[in-house]
């Protein structure tokens, strides 16, 4: 456990020293700032616009961080051969993968927290007050973090079997498809072909359903997420991340570092 924590902490340090991270944070905070402007020209729906744009910025920029840092988590270590000195120490390969995963997740949770503070500051600036109803924004933020947890798992898995560029492409593709699984299933049913319908159904069960985690519009309108949805989404993400990490570990266990 101590070794996993060491690797996680080291990965966190490595990630926070990436310049791209700061560029993305600054850009996201600027976008939240501009959301105030958009809000001020949208009479009556200022809050909706601000929350919508703010949460979307957090989601998109966090996603970019998850993919671009995630794909390098393992492949960069292999490419630079730094992995040789780490795995020659009393470190299990599973510990290495878990440490890397948790390190990047910690980075993204902290970044998301910073951007959420930025969003609340923008809300306060707009309304000169914060109400208890504004807390529902945190539910959408929690779902965004669950999405990041899945995306990091995907990026980590792909980076164990492929090059960084291909890993980024695969991760992005799965993310996009995962947002349209309901449409894909509907398309399968509409074709009338039993084979295609079966294929799209299998695909919809196999790939992570990212649309489950989209609560931005809902909270922008001040509606909270029911408790059972919070619970089922949490369990779904936990299970899926468990599968992704287990697969990454299985592949990594067999990998040779020439």
């Amino acid at each position, binding site marked *: 456990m101590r070794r996993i924590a060491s690797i996680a902490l080291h990965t966190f340090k490595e990630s926070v020293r990436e310049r791209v991270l700061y560029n993305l944070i600054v850009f996201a905070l600027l976008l939240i700032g501009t959301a105030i402007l958009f809000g001020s020209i949208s009479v009556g729906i200022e809050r909706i616009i601000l929350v919508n744009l703010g949460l979307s910025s957090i989601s998109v920029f966090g996603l970019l961080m998850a993919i671009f840092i995630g794909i390098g988590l393992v492949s960069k270590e292999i490419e630079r051969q730094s992995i040789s*000195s780490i795995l020659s120490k009393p470190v299990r390969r599973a510990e290495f993968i878990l440490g890397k995963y948790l390190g990047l997740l910690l980075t993204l949770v902290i970044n998301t927290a910073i951007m959420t503070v930025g969003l609340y500051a923008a809300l306060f600036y707009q309304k000169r007050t914060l109400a208890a109803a504004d807390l529902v924004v945190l539910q959408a933020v929690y779902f965004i973090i669950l999405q990041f947890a899945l995306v990091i798992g995907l990026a980590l898995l792909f980076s164990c079997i492929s090059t960084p560029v291909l890993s980024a492409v695969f991760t992005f593709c799965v993310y996009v498809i995962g947002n349209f699984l309901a449409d894909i299933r509907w398309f399968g049913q509409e074709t009338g072909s039993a084979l295609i319908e079966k294929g799209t159904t299998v695909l919809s069960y196999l790939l992570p359903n990212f649309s489950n985690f989209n609560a931005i519009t809902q909270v922008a309108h001040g509606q909270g997420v029911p408790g059972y949805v919070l619970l089922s989404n949490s369990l779904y993400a936990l299970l899926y991340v468990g599968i992704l990490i287990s697969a990454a570990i299985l592949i990594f266990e067999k990998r040779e570092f020439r």
Partner: protein
Amino acid sequence: MFAVETFDLTKDYDVGFFRQRMKRALERVNLRVATGEIFGLLGPNGAGKTTTLKILLRLVFPTAGTARILGRELDDIAMHARVGYLPENPYFYDHLTAEEFLNYAGELFGLRSSERRRRAGRLLERLGVAEARDIPLRKFSKGMLQRVGIAQALINDPQLVFLDEPMSGLDPLGRREVRDLILELKGEGKTVFFSTHILSDAEMLCDQVAILDRGRLQGCGKLREILALGVALTEMVLENPSPELLKELSAHARSLVRTGERVRLEVPQEADVAKLLALAIRHGAKIVSLNPVKMSLEDYFMAQTGATGDAAAGQEAASLSGTKLRQQ
């Protein structure tokens, strides 16, 4: 107990992209390294030295055969806490300073914070990079990185240290310092297993060497025994030898070089020396010097690697050295 034992260690790699085929990197390699000795794994590039080390450190897996380190199986995680490793051409984390990196390495060995700080400071001092402890590793030269690499290999105070080409990238002073360090480690009772293609380093340091060539073990033995296997040739210098004497000598000598009044000749067969000496005295030549030239590690190395690379040259080299090798 042996520090390292390998039993018929064999490794095949897949090569080629479209048409994959097997390439044998190691062929039934058997090594035994006693505890407390300095062991040198020698061989030209592509001989299988790094593959051997990487198998021992479970970075690659053997196709066949097994190995034991400090009496334990390779997948015994506790055993790795007693081992240190310097990879070839080490590259570490750009964003960390030397001190941070050693701290991280120490954490992975489960060392306490105060112990990590103490050991990191001492090692950086010992390896001459203490002044650069707060500088990010991306600003380090190759030689400095090599020193940090050695420091991280020693942070856990290991019983057995694997060093893959430890002198690579070092200037003459640095090489000397690392040689001294290896001897100090031996003095502390540690076993040092290092790979190199610099024979002079091996000759100066090793108790035992093994020679690999194209994945095959060509020879292995105590350096003392290898180098004392016999006199490779005898060098004789004579002054004012008569033409008749030279004619007779040339039949037994391999090389005959005249410099002024002196003639230098090399006698390959030890048995001929006494006969030629008597002949020279009988002809009234002055004997300036008579030197038995012992075999160097380079001769041994050439004899072994040459024997598989070029059969004719190898045979010549082997007959020249007149040595018999102990294959394990």
